[in-house]
């Protein structure tokens, strides 16, 4: 498969608009703006089968179509560049090395939903990426691709960069909207959904960086072309997989949707470091349930991973070798969720802290009879009862570890110490 998102990024300095246009950049945006109707664009994106790359895999064309057509007044597009999910570093690759691709995708998407102003909500720690984006936006404005009368038409589209302040929860789309409005980044109750009541109460679409960056190729080559890549009809296109952990070649790999996990780890990422044994893999960012070595034949797409009891999520593959203690690993993640919980709703605020305290005890060799059942119960009581999916994510992670590594938890409790760290 020819790369779509990361093509030419090494060496070609695509952050410079001249290099980007030299390889056909902004042609798709021009085509969309000057020769396509909104309906045609949405139709093409629907045909492509493009699903959201932010985690939930919601069809992008359908999301755009939800924006009320008859709404008078502004609508907004938000590019979610918060990239906070542990293990995830794929969007940064686009932001730093191919910013114009994202901007081009955003011009098309803005036009499709009728937005004249769009936001890139970027994670606070991404200082370099934010600077790269700012200068890329300036370049695009100078070329007449952004601002008033773009591509010589009477259309007006502009994009501003909004930097976050380092909260994972601000990646959740409604918290992101609150944060853009200048409020504390707390998720909102849904309904109403952002497509109807979003930024400043106006219809809003929130899309992930990778989702938007896929749009120019669809407009250029057709939805049908995109839909032929990957595992049609429902898991199409190319996908960025961010592989980290105990592999020889960690990094971001752009491959067809549906590449097997095994291929990814042993072929592309060069296998396990030091030839150790594989213990488990988190396939889609910290929130997705862990898989065992015997499950890595799974195809890395939305539906196959769901069938395997996990999720594609942000496609951040975290590889753990035989020396990893799964109690410690789940403790670390649990601490992360407790720390990042916004604290608005009871089950997540209290449940994540409780979970962390129990795990900490077990890891320190002070586990008690019944702790495993208690962890299961606490997770189950969080699951489905929270205001936003962060609580669910914590519970899902926990239940995944308990299901796959129950013996290791039991051994910690029984022997009164961590059997791996031999404390």
């Amino acid at each position: 498969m020819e790369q779509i998102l990361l093509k030419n990024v090494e060496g070609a300095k695509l952050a410079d608009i001249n290099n980007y246009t030299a390889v056909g950049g902004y042609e798709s945006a021009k085509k969309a703006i000057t020769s396509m109707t909104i309906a045609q664009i949405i139709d093409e994106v629907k045909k492509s089968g493009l699903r959201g790359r932010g985690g939930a895999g919601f069809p992008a064309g359908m999301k755009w179509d939800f924006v009320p057509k008859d709404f008078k007044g502004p609508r907004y597009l938000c590019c979610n560049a918060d990239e906070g999910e542990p293990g995830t570093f794929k969007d940064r690759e686009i932001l730093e090395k191919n910013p114009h691709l994202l901007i081009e995708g955003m011009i098309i998407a803005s036009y499709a939903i009728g937005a004249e102003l769009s936001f890139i909500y970027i994670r606070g720690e991404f200082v370099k990426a934010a600077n790269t984006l700012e200068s890329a936006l300036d370049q695009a404005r100078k070329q007449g691709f952004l601002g008033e009368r773009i591509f010589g038409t009477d259309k007006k589209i502009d994009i501003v960069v909004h930097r976050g302040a380092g909260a994972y929860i601000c990646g959740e789309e409604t918290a992101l909207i609150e944060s853009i409005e200048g409020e504390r980044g707390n998720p909102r109750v849904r309904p109403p959904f952002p497509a109807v009541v979003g930024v400043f109460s106006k219809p809003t679409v929130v899309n992930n960086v990778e989702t938007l960056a896929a749009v120019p190729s669809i407009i250029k080559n057709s939805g049908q072309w995109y839909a032929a890549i990957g595992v049609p009809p429902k898991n199409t296109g190319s996908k960025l997989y961010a592989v980290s952990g105990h592999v020889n070649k960690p990094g971001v790999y752009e491959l067809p949707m549906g590449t097997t996990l095994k291929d990814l780890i042993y072929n592309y990422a060069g296998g396990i470091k030091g030839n150790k044994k594989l213990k488990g893999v988190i396939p889609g960012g910290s929130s997705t349930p862990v898989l065992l070595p015997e499950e890595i034949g799974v195809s890395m797409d939305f539906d196959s991973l769901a069938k395997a009891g996990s999720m594609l999520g942000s496609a951040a593959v975290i590889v753990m070798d035989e020396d990893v203690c799964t109690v410690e690993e789940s403790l670390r993640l649990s601490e992360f969720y407790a720390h990042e919980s916004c604290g608005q709703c009871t089950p997540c605020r209290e449940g994540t802290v409780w979970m962390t305290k129990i795990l900490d005890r077990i890891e320190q060799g002070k586990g008690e009879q019944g702790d495993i059942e208690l962890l299961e119960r606490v997770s189950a009581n969080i699951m489905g009862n929270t205001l936003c999916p962060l609580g669910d994510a914590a519970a899902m992670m926990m239940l995944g570890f308990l299901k796959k590594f129950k013996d290791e938890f039991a051994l910690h409790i029984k022997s009164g110490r961590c059997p791996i760290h031999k404390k």
Partner: protein
Amino acid sequence: MPTFEIDGKKITVGQGVTVLEAARSQGIEIPHFCYHESFKSGGLCRMCLVEIEKMPKLQTSCTTVATEGMVVKTTTDRVKQARSAILEFILTNHPLDCPDCDQAGECVLQEYSHKYGPDKSAFREPKELREHIQLSEHIAYDPERCIMCERCVRYYRDVVGTEELAVMQRGAHSEITTFPGRQLDYGYIGNIADICPVGALTTKDFRFKERVYNLRTTETICPLCEAGCTIYVDAKKYTVYRVRSRNKNLTSLHEHPNRNVTALYPKVFIDAILRSSFICDDGRFGYKKAIENGAIPGPINRYEPENRTWNNVISLVAQKIKQAGSKVGGIVSPFATNEEAYAFLYLLKYISGTNTIGVIDFPGAKEFNGATKLQLRKGSQSPNLKGIEQIAGALGIKITPVEEVVASKPELLYVLGPTLNRMDAYTEKIGGIKFIVLQDFKASAFANNVHVVMPGFNFAQKDGTYTNKDGKVQRIRKAVDAKGDARNDLDILTDIIYNISGKKLGSFDNILGLMVKEIPFFNGADAAILTTGINFRKAAGRLW
């Protein structure tokens, strides 16, 4: 108007009514912490989860709008399990210091734990301790007890509009706080102690003073300005311990004063009424002004010092009034009830033939902070000025300034208190008056200079009605007993009238009955409906 089903019952509600509000209107209790009728719900506490057919997850009933054909279940095992789970979560880091928490006995968390909570908690980890914080001189905040329902934050945002409170920190470290270095502005802070469902916000006035279950609650009216806000007085025997707004804190449905109205009336209307059920800080913390100690133990007779029984004093006053004929000067306090005012004016008009009366002047009720959306204060600090004006008008009696009554040098001057020291300025000027009678509950410089003092009751000791600035007639009720040999002011007046004329005016409800018949303004009022002040019965174009 969607029709939907809840626990097997089909009901029709107004457009936009939430499942929780609809359930309430039907007497179905859905437990909740963060929902409050006075402001928008945030779906935070997750206590109100219910099952709705065709929706895979449980839904928060406080944010879910009832729609046509919806089927809601509030008592399934799943719902019960979720409630119990939420309570178990809340209690994980709750100090459970009920034995020294002021809220114990009226705490929603206690109530729900009994009704819906797990029998025991599986939480075995050490709890985190946190220090209490003074949010203002009047309000203390105990973060340990806070359940983060954010009612207080939303009250300041949506009701007061000054956004003085906010959540700081994140997750389990979250805390309610003011802007750094600022305290809450005096004016409307006390209400947050009422709306806090737990003991996280307490008033200095009441903190550690008394257990709420030792107190008797009386529904009455704030006497500190002409707005006449509805209040609760919590008291024991002779002592008032606390004044609260009647904005419901205990969320039990049965206690909700307008439990049938949410579905029937437009939202703005309800909002206005609910908002008006908050009170100001003067009303909450300043009640002591209206009931201060320094009570007069029994009748004082400086005219015939040996005759100090009530019978002596009453016949003396009656005899003196008869002798003075139409040269009786009357002064009334706007703290007197409608019934007292009526009896007093009846005495002046029909027995003495006096056609003017002085009303003691109290200063204006200032608004605290022009920036607040909530502005309750009205008129002057005279709770029943309007009532007295109406009754005087109906009896053809003219109201004149107190100076004029004093300066006219009547044969006999009769002052119906409480004077609350507002007559002290006249102590010098009453020199030449031959006989001065005072009814008051409290000693004062003025009281030291009159011939007869008949000790009466303060507003918390008696029954009657007040008419507020808007013309709403409302019931005040006896909340505490009077010490010593004081008597109900109305009884004193009717005894004197009986002694002179043989006419029996009767008790306060007889007199209210008389006024309803004789005074057009009171048309449609009756003692039974004058309870909450937010009754929806319309009479003569007014809300009673």
